[in-house]
């Protein structure tokens, strides 16, 4: 029965009006109901910093923060995000200054091709907020949902460790973290 249904072309694919708050700014988009949050950001809002590495929720390249929590935007339908807050890589340096994690990723060479990097950094932002950067082992464990095929893992751990240490020594430190 399912197979029969799938062969019946939908004549009127439903579209939906979706209101998002993206990096602090309200955005209205008219979307095909099938559009994921990832494709909404990339194809409809021009925010291509968030990457598609698998479209199956297995690589972490599409990680964004939804109401402050990290989500895989490829497995999140945009329509379910109506009225919610989305933070993407572009939002971290919206004021023209790199976020401390972005600077640390660059200086620790925590990237090579750079494709997984936005997702890595968004995960790292959440990791620090969640207080999960207590040791290298903890960082490795909690960053293991973000794959890097170039193998820049050592630099990724070093960058997060560096920012975590700086934050700790400043007693809470950068408000943006």
């Amino acid at each position, binding site marked *: 029965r399912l197979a029969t249904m799938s062969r019946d*072309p939908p004549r009127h694919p439903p579209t939906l009006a979706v209101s998002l708050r993206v990096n602090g700014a309200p955005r209205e988009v008219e979307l095909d109901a099938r559009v994921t949050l990832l494709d909404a950001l990339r194809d409809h809002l021009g925010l291509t910093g968030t990457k598609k590495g698998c479209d199956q929720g297995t690589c972490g390249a599409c990680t964004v923060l939804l109401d402050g929590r990290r989500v895989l935007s490829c497995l999140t339908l945009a329509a379910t995000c109506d009225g919610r807050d989305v933070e993407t890589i572009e939002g971290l340096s919206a004021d023209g200054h790199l976020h401390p994690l972005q600077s640390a990723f660059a200086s620790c060479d925590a990237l*090579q*091709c750079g494709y997984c990097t936005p997702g890595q950094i968004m995960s790292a932002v959440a990791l620090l907020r969640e207080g999960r950067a207590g040791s290298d082992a903890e960082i490795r464990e909690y960053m293991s949902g973000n794959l890097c095929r*170039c193998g820049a*893992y050592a*630099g990724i751990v070093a960058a997060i460790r560096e920012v975590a240490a700086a934050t700790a020594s400043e007693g809470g430190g950068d408000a943006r973290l």
Partner: protein
Amino acid sequence: MSSPDRAGALPLVGPSEDRIDGPAKVAGAALYPSDVHLPRLAHAALVRSTIASGRIRRIGTEAAGQAPGVVAVITHTNAPRLARGPTGQRFMRGPVGQLVLMTALHRHSVGQLMMTTPSPVSPLQDDRILHYGQPVAVVVAESGEQAVAAARLVEVEYDPDPEPPLLELDDPRAEVLTNPWMLDMARGNVGAGLAAAEVRIDASYATPDETNNPLGLFATVAAWDGDRLIVHDATQWPYGVRETLARVFELPEDHVRVLAPFVGGAFGAGLRAWPHVILAAVAARLVGRPVKLGLTRAEMFTSVGHRPRTRQRVRLGATRRGELVAIDHEATSSTAREDDNVELVAFGAAKAYACPNVATHDRQVRLHIPCPGFMRAPGEAQGNFALESAMDELAYALGLDPLELRRRNDAAVEPQSGLPWSSRGLHECYRQGAERFGWSRRSPEPRSMRDGRMLVGFGMAEVAFQFFQGPCAARASIDRDGRAYVRSAATDIGTGTRTVMTRLSADLLGLSVGRVRFELGDTELPMAPWAGGSGLTGALGAAVHQACMRLVQCFLDLVKNDDESPLKGCTLEQVTTAGGRIVRADHPARGEAFGDILARHGLEELSADGESGTPAAMLVQGIVSSAARFGRVVPAVARKMGARAPAPAFAVKFVEVHVDPDLGTVRVTRVVSAVDAGRILNEKLARSQILGGTVGGIGMALLEETLTDPGTGRIANATLGDYLIPVNADVPEMDVIFVGEPDPLTPIGTKGVGEIGLVG
């Protein structure tokens, strides 16, 4: 002024500088091919075959064609007839191939010819199915969602071949190619050597298919403007893609432009044009609009190559003291039914050790599989694994330390040609690597080392990694503001090409890095070889070096008779560059700025071109090696004339693993890589290359295997949830030591760091 031969005077290890495109990448501002958006862009999705061999009986496109948003459904019944792209390496076969090879050697293009894979068989040309996952239709729609949904509506009926598909290396029905590239190596008499050996090892090894799986899904955006084609593509070789597309669509090459300023990794998958690149251009032409064709992760397993599986047999013969007297290395790998790839698996064994009797044999078996392609350290990764594992078996049989066994068989000269190496830091790799790792703490008795409950194992392997350097061009310009622009069509796939070439240009022209812009990834720029074979830095560096030198010479020519210039009449040897100025070497206060010279002569800009080819020494060695099998006369003459063998990069890896005695699980806990890769231009980035390669090696050793369903040829684990690559928690402490010396035979002293980190 610095000239190419000054490389030896430069430091071995250059400064650690941050990646120049790091800020753009961490901000999400770097534009990869999949990020390109054009007005009126349509989206394409593939329909792929669900059988491995047979024919399409019927393909129903009516439902798909009527689905919302669909612009076109393209199948073999309505696709345009396409020509076949260049099929380079087929010329390599047979006696004619030998002749072509020798001619090519003399024409200094051996690197290119030997390592060039052919273009793919043009897609959608007939009803035949040659592997599971072969594209059988392309659906073009207004949006990606519509294209994917409509692709599911395409109805394909097949007539599978009555015989089951060829999927196994040992299938007796499969065609076997013996010595497919005429590069089987031989010296001495390996049969006699083995027969006379006091100790013999005869070991078999198997390695599985592995898939490159760069994180960046490959995507092509194609747009036609009349009979001109612009393609944004995830490639490591824009000129190669341009050549393929020009041939396929029967266009002059300069009517095709290929852009790849950023590539989301490739690891060899971007070293040729693939069918989907052609299909994107076909679709764009048919619908008269730009088309984006992005591959899915599942399609990345069947559409852009993979590391082919191997079966290998290594026979070693040695004296009781551990001196090798014979090495025989046989390797069989898989290839496609009607497409070709180069995978030299056994080849490397000939240069590994001093050993009088050596034979290597490479074979390929044609199967109904997606065509394999290069994957980081192709051939070498599998072949070296087998050879070094056999060496460990030999060490065990002799009761000898594995490191000591390798020392006793050190190839003091290049063993195939007998020529002295141009550089050889392998001993330093042994010494410094062993010291850093603490190899002396190794206990040879099995199960004798423990850390708590865990069994601890120490292991080591060495590798000589031959880089391939193709011809390359670059152009350097300086404008009236004293800014330099250096350009070449190379790609930076994350290796750091942009960064090291900007620094090299800045140093040569005496400018700060901020005053130099290095542009790449565009076929409108001077020709560059692929970012592959660990040879781009050497090739491009040499071309950039020459372009910058010639540019300074152009400025000197301009002021040759200029009474107002303090540089009047100076030769290149009499000047140097610093602070944006050309100054007299004997009198650094006397000189002038590039911009001032241009202004006085009424010029806006001055440019110069540089080129580099395969180093002549590489060709000499190739010829001497080939001749060596017919006797020792040619090598002896070459030696007398002072010829030297261009050294590969050398490395030794020391690894500690913990094995759970109850579960048998293996965890890598420590890795030390000691590497002689010649001159290191930027320590931070080179270190990242070695570390990244090591992570790939851990994946290959412990995690990665592409599984093919035996009956159907379907890839059974085509997701990153099922095909496991190392995650952050899999990666241990890793250390890298660079040793050796700048290699005097390459213009800037480098030997390549892109792949050697994976091998060992």
